[in-house]
Each structure stands twice: as C-alpha cells, then as structure tokens.
C-alpha cells in the first residue's frame, strides 16, 4: 500500500503561483540540478507576512511533505517552477478543494507531486503541524493528530499519466514516442 506520511502545511483559497514562487526567482532553471534545489528553498516565500515560514531560514527543504489547501490552488501563471519548487522542497502531495488547470496539469506532466482533490473543505479540518497519512490507492487521508479520516477523490482521467510517472513515461508506454 502506497502511503505518504508527515506534517501538513495548511493554506486557504486562491493561492497563486506568484505566492508559491515569486517572479524574482524565475531566473532559476528547473532542469539544472543546483537551481532545482534553490527553487525548493524559495517555495511559498511569496505568501503574505504572518504565515508560518514554509522553509526555515537557511534550510533548503521544508518539513511538510503534505500541503492541504482550499479552492483554486495554483492559479495564475503557467510557470512550472511552481510545482517544481514544491517538489524540490520535499512536498509529496497537495490535497486541495480544487486546482487551477495549468498547475494541476504541470503536477501531472512533471510527476513532481500528487495533486489530490478533496471532497470537503479539509483546510478547515487540519492545522499546520498536524500529522497526516495519505493512503494513495485507498483515496483516503487521516489526520493522525485528531484521529479523523476523510476520503479524497480518485485521480480519474489523469491517473494513467500519474501512474506512468509523467507525460513522457506515459507517451512511451502507449507508443506515442519511442
């Protein structure tokens, strides 16, 4: 059984890609390994002041493998730097009430992280720092801190692409490219 376990970081609605990775870091190229790591260290640094820092000063990764968010997560720009910086910071899955289309697609195409949709508003039922366990095949998330379990939505039409490990692996598997 595939599970993802660890601390959660909770966000509300309309978290845009400028907040996920501010424009001044877009000069970093995700396919260059050192710059991939650097992108991770700047993940979510565009959140307005008052949020718990996602990546601690001086650290290169975050302590939160799971992000739980509200509606329209990842809206705005098509910058792939956004899912990439979260993946580079150690995020394995986001569970949001809904996603902006391009961000969702970039998660799937890159295979950086699982973009799960929740049936209910989980961002009101988890607090930053709670421990969570996601059962990937069972489409369920448990708040280990409160003991409550919630179902999440199956990945649906994109599941074959996610299972293959991204758009290239999927296209090779299905014979579209060699």
């Amino acid at each position: 059984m595939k599970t993802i376990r660890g601390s959660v970081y909770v966000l509300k609605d309309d978290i845009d890609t400028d907040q996920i990775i501010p424009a001044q870091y877009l000069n970093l190229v995700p396919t260059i390994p050192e710059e991939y790591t650097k992108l991770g260290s700047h993940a979510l640094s565009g959140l307005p002041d008052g949020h718990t820092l996602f990546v601690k000063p001086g650290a290169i990764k975050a302590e939160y493998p799971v992000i739980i968010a509200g509606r329209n997560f990842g809206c705005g720009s098509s910058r792939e730097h956004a899912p990439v910086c979260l993946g580079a910071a150690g995020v394995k899955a986001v569970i949001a009430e809904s996603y902006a289309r391009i961000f969702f697609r970039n998660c799937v195409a890159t295979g950086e992280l699982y973009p799960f949709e929740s049936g209910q508003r989980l961002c009101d039922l988890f607090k930053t720092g709670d421990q969570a366990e996601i059962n990937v095949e069972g489409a369920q998330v448990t708040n280990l801190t409160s003991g409550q379990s919630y179902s999440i939505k199956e990945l649906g039409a994109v599941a074959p692409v996610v299972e293959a490990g991204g758009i290239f692996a999927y296209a090779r598997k299905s014979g579209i490219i060699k």
Partner: protein
Amino acid sequence: MGMTLTEKILARAAGKRVVGPGDNVWVEVDILLTHDVCGPGTIGVFQREFGRMAKVWDPSKVVIIPDHYIFTADEMSHRNVESLRTFVKEQSLPYYYDPGTPNYKGVCHVALPQTGHVRPGEVIFGTDSHTCTHGALGAFATGIGNTDAGFIMGTGKLLIKVPKTLRFTVDGTVPRYLMGKDIILKIIGDIGFDGASYCAMEFRGDAINQLSIEERMTICNMVIEAGGKNGIIAPDEKTFEYVKARTDKPFEALYSDTDARVECDRVYDASKLEPCVAEPHVPSNFALARERNDVKLDRAYIGSCTGGKITDFVAAARILKGQKVAIPTFLVPATVEVAEAIMSSMIDGKSLVEIFAEAGCEDVAPPSCAACLGGPTDTFGRTTGKEAVISTTNRNFPGRMGSKQSRIYLASPLTAAASAIRGRITDPREFMS
C-alpha cells in the same frame, strides 16, 4: 448536435470529425511559443528526454520571444537569454527575436500576432498562461508548462482535454468611455476567479464585433484570470485584415455551429457597463471606478500584454492631453511596434510621446514585461514598499509587481490615466465631454 469554435479547431487538429467536452485527444500543434523565463527549462526537458542532439519537430513552428527579464543587470537572466541564442543557432530556428538587436520585439503576446504568427483556426501552445490572448484572432491558444512544451518540441503533439464552452454575448453599442478591459473585469467579477476553470470562454455579440483586434486581445488575455483554458472570438473581416497584413501563410477560419452545445450563455449590454477596477488582491474583486473615489494612489502603470498596446496608449493620451499627472506615471509599451506608434501617432497635431511628456509622465520605457510581474530587483517600475498602484496589467496578486505590501488596482488605460491626474481612483468620464 453541433460543435463550438473551440471544439471544431481541436477536432481538426486531432484528425477527428467530432469531439466533445471531456474527450482527451492528441492534437497537432501549429505554433509553440516560449520566452526567456520558461524557454531554458523547456529546452532542458527537451534535451533530457530526446537527447542532447535531438532536433525540434518543425523549426518553422517554434517561436521564441524573450521579453520578461531583458533590461536588468541580473547575470542569471542574461545567461538564460544566452542559452536561448545557443539553442536557436544549433537548431537553425527562423523565428527568434533577439534582445539588443533590431529584431527584438518585446512582450510575446503582443509580438506574436503583430509578427504574423497567429492565424484563425490554428492551435497555439505557449509556456505562458496569457497565451490565451491569441484566441482573439479565432485560434485555439492556451498556456502550458515546460514539460508539456518540451514534449511538443520533440513531437509536435500534445494530449489535451476538450473543454466545455461558456458563452458570453456582449450586445449593444460600446460607449467611448468603456474598454475591453472593463468588459472582461465585469465578466470575471460576475463568474469569479475560478468561474471558468477548465472551460473555453467564447465571446460574441455586436459589442465584440465593434472592438478592434487589440481590444479583443485584452478580453481574451484575461480569461486565465477566471481560470479559463482558452478565450476565443470568431474571426471576421477585421481579423482577416489584421492577419493578412502580417502573413502570407494560408489558414482556414472556423466558426461555431448554431446548434453548438454551451455550458451557459451570459448576455451583457455594453451600453450599460461602466468603467471599473479590480481591487487587491484578486482580479475578480470588481468595483465601479466612480464608487472608489476615496482610494488614494501613489503610482500609475500603463503597460503589459493586457494594457500596453497601441490602442491602450492612444486611450491614455486622449485623457492626458492638456492635463498634468499627480502621481508618478510609468509607461511601458509592450513591443517595439507599440513604442514606435507612441512616437508617430498624433492626436490633434501632437504625438503621444509629447502628450505624455507634457502631462509629466515618466519617460517612456523600452518595451518588455517590466514591472507587470515584479522581476529582478532592478526592474523598471517595480514596487518596493506599500505603494497603491493603478495598473493596466492583468494580475493584482500579493507581490505581483514586486513588493508584497503594495496594493494593485487593475483598470483600463482610460481609467488609469484619469486616476493618474487626480491621484485617486477616477472614472474617465470626468475628463470626457
């Protein structure tokens, strides 16, 4: 049951007679657009997956327009443009618009149609969310990430889901004080910031027909601000005239069937719409300009792919003529063609550049994205503190123009110019007799 314009284009690109919303289809790509921010990563993916020596699928279909971080001392940004140059040389790409040369264009979404790369009925993907702009000429156009773009570079194809279509009929006569920006901000305000998620937004009606191609581009540019996959307007005589003046390449225009299935049809009367703003920090935060007179401003910004076109500067100049701005007013033409028009276009015997200078605006900046997205710290017009900015750009997210504390009000160039004169949000009708 008939098909919408979006469905027809995708059906043809997929080699199918019929497609419907929700179908996942492989489409053949006509144009892949990239720029200096996402180009290097796209090339990185392409070479990682297809090999260091691989060739792009069709050099005549790859268009690279550096525009984001051009006028900066930032070394990394220069390195990125340099890596584009190397790739363009290796691949012998004919359509590369190099900064620092006479071939430089400026903001990709204004340069792409101006340079004749947008044609009705075609499929355009770009590594930039505002690629949706090009639907204004009857093409299917949408933004993608580096990985999908790297895939297209190698194969010329992409797997996509056919979107549902939301239809917006804007009838009536467009008043002089109303711009495409007011129409799209009103629509986004009504349907919400994610109101068109995964959907095509098709615009039609008498008012849309009256708009110039550039004004239609403003509307399609902002569909992403409602989560839309693409914006689209059926081509007409204005479209054909615009396209044929810029390219000889043949194209076949397509149109929605009269019995096409749409998810919804919202009807507006342009003559009843009023100049408006989107307040911080989401573009759906609609308010009428005349009801926000109390909002004091520190700066005005006219520029970007949304509000930095020729018609945008003409509109601003109509208001600023014979007036003085009360706050620093930044002018950033989107492209070289726009910059040239600012020098040469006249209103009552005065060039736009003279009108702006006499009104006390900052000197017109060289064309690029500039502060529309903040950028490196030395970017022209970038906010650094708690500025309240009235801007003709498309996004007012926290930190979008630089500082997380600054507050951005999105508006039309008419409204931005009127507000610059008063130093507070102002309905442009106050300056139109």
